[in-house]
């Protein structure tokens, strides 16, 4: 399998890049399209459609094909794998029971390939009370249908920090409430990756004492937003608070589970009126949480070393690389963000594309398939 990554800030640039990528008998069949919601999705997908390339598309919170991180741009990872080895499914869950729909799709995938591997994304309206809960549901549903050990990677579509609307798309359809699945034939294509966060839980354990949907109202019977602000060392007046944009604050909680590793849940929106915060994943009343501190800067190096180990032990070569990195990591790593991306890419030295997500699907080292926050998930693909 041959892969190429291209990028551009407009459809025109993409058209050019696409043309330039294809003279050497490279005939791509599948494109991972990650682009800003503010760019022209229809135009780009039209270009790809012209070339009969199947699209797995999602809007982003920033996109990259190498260490350079773009914003408002378009990145595409082109693959020339045989169409018989993959299938793209897209369904709108607005008028259906999302869980039943996910189940239906997983069942369909299972019918197509004996051992399907999944690359998934989805779009939500982040302000919906239960928007972030959906991804946990999808994850669990796919696992329950395809099996615990099934390979599932992916990331939730973003909207450049607007937290308003996100989109997933294929060649002819764009959906604001969609479940997007790329089903790969696991027997033909090897998929391997790792999720890493480096977040470190600190301080005392606290209990979510009031929550509705994915909104936390009280922690240890105290207003949730207030408490979070305190941790951040911010003393805001009511007026300041109401206009405060918390998007880059990067508050991440570690939620302990009855079984297995704790999962991370990043804070999304603040509601200053009732002092609540929304989480980018499922939480519930009674959950025990701890605040986490951002990873040490050497986590970048750690991720790279792990990747090298995997390359050495399991996957000496990769045809292509995907990366789903949490939008929260942008502020955590600042100018160092590129290093993390580039570090992994360099290990495999394969074409790569990725984007900053609103939550990540994948498994951490020694963990099961989970829906995460604040992780960096890299995925290597290799035709067998």
């Amino acid at each position, binding site marked *: 399998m041959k892969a190429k990554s291209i990028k551009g800030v407009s459809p025109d640039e993409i058209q050019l890049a696409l043309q330039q990528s294809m003279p050497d008998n490279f005939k791509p069949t599948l494109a991972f399209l990650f682009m800003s919601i503010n760019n022209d999705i229809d135009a780009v997908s039209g270009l790809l459609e012209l070339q009969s390339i199947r699209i797995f598309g999602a809007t982003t919170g920033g996109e990259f094909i190498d260490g350079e991180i773009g914003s408002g741009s378009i990145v595409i990872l082109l693959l020339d794998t045989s169409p018989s080895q993959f299938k793209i499914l897209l369904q709108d869950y607005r008028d259906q029971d999302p869980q039943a729909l996910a189940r239906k799709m997983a069942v369909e995938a299972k019918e197509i390939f004996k051992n399907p591997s999944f690359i998934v994304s989805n779009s939500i309206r982040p302000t919906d009370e239960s928007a972030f809960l959906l991804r946990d549901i999808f994850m669990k549903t796919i696992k329950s249908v395809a099996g615990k050990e099934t390979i599932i990677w992916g990331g939730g579509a973003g909207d450049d920090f607007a937290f308003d609307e996100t989109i997933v798309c294929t060649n002819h359809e764009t959906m604001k409430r969609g479940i997007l699945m790329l089903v790969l034939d696991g027997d033909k294509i090897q998929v391997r990756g790792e999720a890493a966060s480096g977040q470190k839980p600190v*301080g*005392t354990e606290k209990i979510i004492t009031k929550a509705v949907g994915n909104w936390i109202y009280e922690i240890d019977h105290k207003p949730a937003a207030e408490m979070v602000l305190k*941790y951040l*060392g911010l003393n805001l007046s009511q007026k300041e608070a109401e206009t405060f944009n918390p998007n880059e604050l990067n508050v991440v909680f570690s939620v302990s589970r009855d079984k297995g590793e704790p999962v991370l849940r990043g804070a999304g929106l603040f509601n200053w009126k009732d002092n609540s915060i929304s989480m980018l994943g499922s939480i519930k009343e009674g959950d025990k949480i701890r*605040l986490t*501190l*951002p990873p040490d800067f050497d986590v970048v190096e750690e991720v790279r070393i792990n990747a090298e180990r995997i390359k050495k032990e399991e996957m000496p070569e990769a045809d292509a690389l995907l990366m789903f990195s949490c939008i929260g990591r942008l502020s*955590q790593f*600042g*100018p160092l963000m590129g290093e993390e991306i580039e570090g992994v890419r360099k290990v495999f030295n394969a074409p790569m594309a990725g984007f900053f997500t609103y939550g990540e699907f994948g498994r951490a080292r020694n963990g099961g398939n989970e829906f995460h926050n604040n992780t960096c998930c890299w995925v290597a693909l290799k035709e067998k």
Partner: protein
Amino acid sequence: MMNKDLQAILNIVQHALHLSEEEKNEIINALKSANKELEVTFFKLERTEKVKHTTAILLEETIEELESKRKSVEAQNKELEIESSLERVRTVAMSMNKPDDMLLVCKTISEQLGLLKVKEIRNVQTAIFYKERGIYMNYEYYAKHNKTVITETEYTNHQIQKDFAEKMQKGNGEFYTSQLTEAEVKDWLTYQKTTNVFIDEYLNNASSLNYYWYSLGSVALGISTYKALNEEEQSLFKRFLRVFELSYRRYLDIEKAEAQAREARVEASLEKVRAIAMSMNRPDDLLNVCEILFKEFAAFGFAGLRNAMVNIHDDDNRTFVNYDYSDEIGKSTNHLTYDIHPVIKKQIAQIRSSNDAFSETVFSGRDLEDWKKFRKEIGEKDDPRLNKSTALYYYFYSIGSGSIGISTFGAIDEEKTKLLKRFRNVFNLSYQRYLDLALAETQAKEARIEAALERVRSRSMGMQKSEELKEVIQVVFDQFAHLNIHIEHTGFIMDYKSREDMSIWLADNQKVPSQITIPYFNSPHWNSFREAKEKGLDFFANYLNFEEKNKFYRELFEHIPGLPQDTKEFYLTCPGLAISTVLLDNVGLCIENFSATPYTEEENKTLMRFGKVFQQTYTRFLDLEKAEAQALEVQKRASVDRVRAEIASMRTKTDLERITPLIWNELNTLGVPFIRCGVFIMDEDQQIVHTFLSTPDGKAIASLHVPFGFDLSIITNGIKHWGNKKRYKEHWDANQFVKSWTVLSSLGETAVDNYSGEQIPESLYLHMLPFLQGMLYVGNDALLTEEDLQLVQNLADAFSTAYARYDDFIKLEAAKLTVEKTLVDLKQAQQQLVQSEKMASLGELTAGIAHEIQNPLNFVNNFSELNRELLSELAEEAEKGNTEEVKVLANDIRENEEKINQHGKRADAIVKGMLQHSRSRTGAKELTDVNELVDEYLRLAYHGLRAKDNSFSATIKTDFDESFGKINIIPQDIGRVLLNLFNNAFYAVTAKKKSTGSAYEPIISVSTRKAENRTIIAIKDNGTGIPQKMVDKIFQPFFTTKPTGQGTGLGLSLSYDIIKAHGGEIEVNTKEEEYTEFVIQLQS
């Protein structure tokens, strides 16, 4: 965006003239790289700063939490300590079982508070309040003295105590505290020293005294300290209070339960006394009461209990009975007087003062010695314990008519006195009930005797026959038994004054005949009887021992034949004989038993009362005997009369079946013993014996008809004896009975089966008593006495007379039947005659009608003949064209046709009339023109006669009154009358013509007229008239003056009936050889 300083360097470098481009680029790249490094470093610094900040906050928080955890652990430890202290107090408090145990609780609380670092504790104490006494019991533990004190404290004397006590007694949850200053403490101590409380010397140097009391209602827990408690210490003490409270409540509950248990034990004990008192049925049972009292008092720990007593007073006689019991001496009863000893006199006076009186007496020293002596003097049992004692106590409670009490060797406390009173109360209730019951029983006994006597009396008065005396004696027996008087025999001794033997009616449970007569023989009993009789005594009693009794009975059995062996044996094996006899006016009553227990005085008194009642019975018995003799005579007569009456009412053979029940009833009425009966009627004419027999229950079975020669001895001998007018007897056993009736069954009479039924008599005596027409049969299981046979013979004779009348009646009835048959024949002949009369009149009519019809028919024939001719003429004239003639002829033909038509109608009317006449007499009334009717029938009669005799002629004069209209009659019927009268008239004139010759001119006059509401029709002829002697008979049926065969004799009779049926009159006026006139009057 590049760092300002670097940018400045960059600017310098870019504008540096001494640097080559290459150098410049190198420097620029280095600067850019440095800038990048700087940027990264700044970012790292900034982020680290943030993280540091957050970490600091988290650290602070963590430290805070740790601190709070530490505090919490400390608090927990402290709490644990407190809990374990509380637990120690709880353990002590839980084991409280008396108020004194509170001391240990106070001590434990004090120690534990000390362990929990409460300083300067003076004491811990409790107080139990008794408001009514104005005191509280104070249980205190002084920590520094390590001393416990219990003090009864009057709280009304000092304001501090008063305030405290009042506050505490307000109820559970109240809190009292007071802090005394040093000076106040001094004052307080000074006061305390005037009381009985423990004096705490530490107070001398105390700077303050602090009280903290918490009320739990009836009890309060408090602490006093030399230094005020802080809030924490107070709340700590309160926790001890809670523990104490729970335990104390439990203690109260236990105490309550114990009190209840004690009370239950008392109740159980009282219940025993109640039970024994309730079961009393005689005074001596009071000893049992004393025993129970003694045992119960002993069980309740009455120390030095000597005995338990009940005294029953008799105020009338100033005596009393003393019942007492002790385990040592047992039961004893003493009869004493009120005045036997001054102390007793005093005690009784005290007791009698009220129903609730209490008497307490103490003997000691000299008094006691005197008392011991006195006891000996009055012969009371020796009491070794009393001899040793130095004091003796008596406690009595009044029970109204006496007292209940104890004596003891030591004084009893108030509680025991109360207990004694409770026993008194319970006993008293039961004892009063016993007294009531005893009274009620006496009354009931009297009532029972009265009721028993009443039963005897009413049975006596209810005697309808003298023989019912045996039922009366049975009632007497039963009533004695009912009164629980031991009795095995009772007997009425009849007419003893007027007899020289014993005539006794008996009742018992043995099979002794209910009536026996025994001569006097030498025996103790009979001798006593005769002696009493001679002396005129009204009562004597005898007692025979076993031998005496057997001697008496052996002799007695000689005079009672047929007594079963087992009965004899019974008498001979009984232990003895006790007899009480009451003698009255010529009659006696005795009761006996064989268990050799003489009757008590009371029982004999009852016997006397029965005797008096029996005297009345005897009188009634004599009256009945007299009345019965008279009644029997009356019965016989009545019976005979009934038989006569009954048989006289018999009319048919079936009635004869009533014979058997009749005989059955009469035999019953006459009191003749029998089990079957019947009548045999000997029919010599037919040589048959008609038997009428009864079923065993007195119903008749269908009569059997047995030929004279039937081979059955009862028949053959029956006939023979009847012939000789002799009675005949025959005896059948069961076999013969069956055999004889089998023979009779051969006659084929099914009813025979009913005779025997299911009861085949073992022995049957058949008595046949002759009477004129047969034999009366009475069957019995024993031979009838002559007396009975005479009664039956009377019945037979009465039956005979009655049966003879029945026989006569049967004959008369046969004659009557013959006459009746003749009458029926006659009636049939009459009906035939009426029919032939009817036919005769119809014949006459027919003749008239034929003539009537002939006339119109002639006209019809003639005119139709004429018309035929005229039509021929018409045809001719028409051919000739003679139109005028044709017209004339046609006119003639039309006129003739009219006449034909007219006469045709007339014939039609005649035929209709005839049809009407021949109809039966069931016609209905209708409005009819009388004149027309008369005219029509006159002509019918005339022409009818003319048809038979054409030589006949007569002058007919009619005079019809045209003024009246139609009247409501049955025209056919009236027509028949008229026809009859016209025929008679024509007949009369014809007869006269024949006898007188041509000179005679027959004239018939018919007239009608109206008079008031009546229509009168008169028909008169001048014929032969009716002889005067016959006038009265002419309207009788079958009377006729016509020669035989010419008249039925019913014409006028029928006419008369018809007119009468119309409510009218018909009469005749006649003179022989001159005229006859019939006048009919009908209602208009």
